[in-house]
């Protein structure tokens, strides 16, 4: 029983990271109808920036905040420079753009910081959380930061004018422009926020998976699985999907004989395929109730 609880809690902790990645993917998908394959690499690059800042002697939380700001600006810059010109291009052109972005960021990180694995600090420590062997303080910190982030985002989208404008721009762009919303900047803002959210995921998971240019590969696949499971049109679903995938991954690795650590990733891929076959809209995918 202790093993089970332990695995569930650990699953929730990594699930929090998948939830952040899924949310970042869904935010961009909502804005431009494309999946950002480079989301993980962007998060990895942000994490390297925070590491570099700490190497220069800046304390953890200051580096954390500076990285958030830089990621936000960087996300906007990527949208303005690369994807705004592609807005009317066919799907495959965009896919090629994302793959190019993936390769560029991955190799740049390797060039700047090389491919050796680096330790990444945690501000929470890794002692038992509240004296319990079930969960470490870092895992508790991952969950805590993610929950704060999600509450903040909920408040932003539900109760601020700009959040309302962003939702409107994503749901009916033409009407949004007709009420005076600059939809193009709303898309850029969405990129900035998604990149910042991804950077939080990267910085939280780095102490676990260690820092190197390919650190987010697996994480992003789980993030995609989470987004598909929850429904690509539902930010709420993406978050729930993230936690479910995290727990499911851990339980499958522990209890299904032969899965272990090696087959965990194919489970995420199998999950993507099964959800697409059985329920393409995902668990919380938008059912638009519409009377004609």
């Amino acid at each position: 029983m202790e093993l089970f609880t332990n695995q569930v809690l650990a699953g929730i902790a990594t699930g929090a990271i998948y939830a952040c990645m899924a949310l970042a993917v869904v935010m961009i998908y909502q804005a431009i109808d494309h999946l950002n394959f480079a989301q993980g690499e962007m998060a990895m690059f942000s994490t390297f920036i925070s590491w570099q800042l700490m190497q220069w002697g800046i304390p953890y939380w200051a580096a954390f905040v500076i990285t958030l700001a830089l990621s936000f600006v960087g996300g906007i810059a990527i949208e303005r420079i690369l994807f705004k010109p592609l807005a009317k291009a066919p799907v495959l052109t965009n896919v090629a753009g994302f793959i190019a972005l993936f390769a560029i960021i991955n190799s740049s990180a390797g060039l700047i910081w090389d491919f050796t694995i680096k330790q990444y600090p945690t501000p929470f420590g890794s002692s038992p959380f509240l004296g319990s062997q079930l969960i470490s303080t870092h895992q508790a910190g991952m969950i805590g930061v993610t929950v704060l982030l999600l509450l903040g985002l909920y408040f932003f989208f539900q109760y601020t004018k700009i959040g309302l404008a962003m939702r409107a721009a994503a749901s009916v762009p033409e009407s949004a422009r007709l009420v005076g919303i600059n939809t193009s900047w709303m898309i850029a803002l969405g990129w900035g926020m998604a990149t910042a959210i991804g950077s939080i995921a990267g910085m939280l998971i780095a102490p676990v998976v260690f820092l190197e240019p390919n650190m987010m590969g697996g994480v992003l696949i789980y993030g995609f699985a989470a987004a598909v499971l929850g429904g690509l049109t539902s930010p709420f679903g993406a978050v729930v999907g993230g936690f479910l995938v995290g727990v499911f991954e851990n339980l499958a690795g522990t209890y299904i004989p032969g899965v272990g650590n090696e087959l965990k990733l194919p489970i995420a891929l199998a999950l993507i395929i099964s959800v697409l076959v059985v329920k393409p809209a995902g668990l919380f995918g938008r059912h638009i109730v519409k009377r004609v």
Partner: protein
Amino acid sequence: MTTLLNVKDLRAYYGQVQALHGLSFSLSEGSLTTLLGANGAGKTTTLRAICNMVRSTGGIEFDGKPLNNRSTESIVRFGIAHVPQGRGTFTTMTVEENLQLGAITRKDSAGIVSDIERMYAHFPVLKQRHTQQAGTLSGGEQQMLAVARALMLRPRLMLLDEPSFGLAPLVVRDLFGILGKINREDKVSILVVEQNAQLALELADQAYVIETGRIVMSGNAKDIANNEEIRKSYLGY
């Protein structure tokens, strides 16, 4: 009366296809003007050209200021509210959020709150459903919501594209009654595009008839309604 909107030699294009061929008309402040014409005559294109949603050349002046080459979202800030064909409802958002979106360019939050109450007084059905997803409203209710959303801008000019489309005749009567009231009481100038010529002419004071991208007839709405020849040849009733 002063001219609020002046359109001169307007030509609009969809790709290579020209949809408007030098169309000119004007609308005076406080008036309720209607653009009539058959399917494909260019009525919707005219409204879309005013809001720069289609490529066009020619002069469009609002209150003496040129609107050409401004983005759709900045034209709204002149006080021009456009209710597009198909109503443009934010279907996944609540009725109240739709109203708030109509006022998104305004800064006076107290005024916005009181205007939402005013809309609920105009359209009681919206108050009953204010927390409901707008997509669940009936067609008539969505049209009411679209008009209310446009009014939330406190517009000087409202552009309405086929407000009667797909609505039951009784609902259309209601809606047009409300439009007349808004025009008289709130002093909002209205430009309405309609296929339902009979009804639009009853409501409007000024009318233009478009055929294949040109104005072919203009005048007082009553005169046009009373002219059997025009009615038969252009308006089909």
